[in-house]
């Protein structure tokens, strides 16, 4: 009996894996329908944080060459715009359940990369941007509901998400020189 059980045990040890996968969840935009007129409303320039990574893996934030370690803080300050500076995002008063009428930052992060950028760098940049946003959401959750974001229920999470929407958008890839 024990022999058979051992045999099965060893089979399962060999044929299965225990590692759990972790990763950054992202939602890709749908392919725009050519028959539907595009929304031409341009987003106000001050609302966009422009992040570019070139083929040498250098980081350009709002036209400034930036150290990678500063990115999180820059994104954080940009989204929050605590002092209502004119070169940082506008705020709009909206009614959000649980939070009431609040001034919400209209920040958008635009991420552009080169064909030659390394994937590892791209992920690191995405990670920093997501981290900045999560930090703000977590702070808000603690301040408003007295507990970390992870422990909120779905409705409250939704409210916090609405406050700091901050879409991270990626430009439609451009390819010069036609299709491969």
């Amino acid at each position, binding site marked *: *009996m*024990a022999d058979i*059980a*051992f045999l*099965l*045990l060893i089979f*399962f*040890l060999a*044929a*299965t*894996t*225990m590692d*759990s*996968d*972790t*990763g*950054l*969840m*992202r*939602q*890709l*935009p*749908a*392919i725009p329908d050519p028959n539907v007129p595009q929304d031409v409303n341009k987003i106000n320039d001050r609302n966009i944080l422009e992040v570019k990574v070139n083929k040498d*893996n250098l980081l350009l934030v709002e036209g400034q060459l930036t150290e*990678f370690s500063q990115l999180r803080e820059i994104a954080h300050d940009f989204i929050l715009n605590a002092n209502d500076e004119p070169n940082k995002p506008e705020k709009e008063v909206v009614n959000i359940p649980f939070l009431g009428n609040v001034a919400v930052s209209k920040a958008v992060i635009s991420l552009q*990369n*080169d*064909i*030659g*950028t*390394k*994937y*590892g*760098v*791209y*992920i*690191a940049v*995405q*990670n920093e941007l*997501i*981290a900045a946003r*999560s930090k703000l959401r977590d702070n808000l959750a603690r301040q408003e509901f007295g507990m970390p974001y992870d422990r909120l229920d779905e409705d409250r999470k939704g409210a916090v998400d609405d406050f700091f929407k901050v879409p991270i958008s990626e430009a439609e*890839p451009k390819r010069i020189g036609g299709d*491969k």
Partner: protein
Amino acid sequence: MAKFIKTGGKSVKSLNTSSLPDIVFMILFFFMAVTTMRETDVMVTVRIPEATEGKVLEKKSLASFVYIGEPLEAFQGLYGTEPKIQLNDTFKELADIQDFIAQEREQLNEADKTKMLVVLKIDRDTRMGVVTDVKQALRRASALKIMYANTNVDKITHIY
């Protein structure tokens, strides 16, 4: 005090093993519950990048995996050293992604079709050109929920 006085033969009684199968079965069931079957043999080198914000993939059954990286040495004679896309157990081209997604989606039941997730396991040294192409192919296949696989760390120490 008589019971402490040893009497008779000095032979040690062998250990009672009648409960051994129970114990082994217990371990067996534990492994059956916490592990998942190895589904694909990865044929490309995938050194997954580090990140701090990764979320755990909860429903593995909803996930399809796309591997991108340099082929392993054994395959380099045939496929070269340029990053290749691996779907299931074979190397595929960009144009095959749409079929692959359709096929994977077919295997899910009706309620789960909208929740389908594509997990991209990409080597950190891959250039973004390939990755962007794959992302565009996924958009065309309307597989919009994706996950960039990474290993979770507390702090990113090294940028590749």
